[in-house]
């Protein structure tokens, strides 16, 4: 009985992570004084090959504003967090339009970074 419950638990944990982007290849930039990113409705990632992903699914830049808008919907302020994960060597040509798109969609932008230890 316990085994079955345990396996079910693992099954649902894996399902909950279906939109995860942890399998993508990117290295975060480093900065000081970071805070916990918290729960986010959307996670945008630019990987080491400058490919764009929204919640783990690859998409084009032209689709991004609309898709973020749909994900955020009419969520009130404070619940419109969008995580931005950008590979540290990605170029402005790729990440600046993404930052603008998040801003246009009314998302609360959180750059996901790595703590810089002194």
């Amino acid at each position, binding site marked *: 009985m316990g085994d079955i419950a345990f396996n079910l638990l693992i099954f649902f944990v894996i399902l909950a992570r279906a939109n995860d982007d942890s399998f993508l290849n990117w290295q975060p930039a480093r*900065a000081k004084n970071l805070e916990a990113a918290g729960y986010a409705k959307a996670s945008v990632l630019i990987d080491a090959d400058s490919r764009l992903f929204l919640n783990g699914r690859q998409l084009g830049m032209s689709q991004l504003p609309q898709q973020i808008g749909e994900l955020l919907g009419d969520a009130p302020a404070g619940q419109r967090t969008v995580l931005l994960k950008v590979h540290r060597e990605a*170029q402005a040509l790729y990440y600046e339009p993404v930052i603008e798109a998040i801003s246009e969609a009314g998302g609360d932008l959180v*750059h996901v970074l790595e703590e810089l230890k002194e």
Partner: protein
Amino acid sequence: MKVRRSTKLLVEPSAVTTGDIAFNLIVFFLVCASSAPDSGRRQNIPRSETVPQQKEKSQHVEVQLTRTTMAINGDVVRPRDFVPQLRRLLAGKPRLEDRVVVVKSRPEVPYHHWITATSGIEEAGGIITIQREEEREVQIPQ
């Protein structure tokens, strides 16, 4: 004299289940282990709007970024002087709209350099606005 014999037998759990338990434990820790960073920095960037290029010089502070350098209002500054110089420029500006700092980046600017610069702007009390040159398709008549 009567000697009492203990009737308790040593009962060992079946060794067959050991593999199952080990497998479940491996799966559990694999699922739980996450190497993804979960800390970050919140950044408020006002919504941008497309406006025609103005002839007159903007009153806002401008930060220009290239691949390796930072410049404030056209003057290249050393990284350690970046925040103090911005603080000086923003010191006499109590209104929020006057504290806007326009960030202009070359297309090749790496993200870590951009983060360093924008973190410095926020540390100095500035409000970041991105200014990007629009890309336009030009059709050559045949």
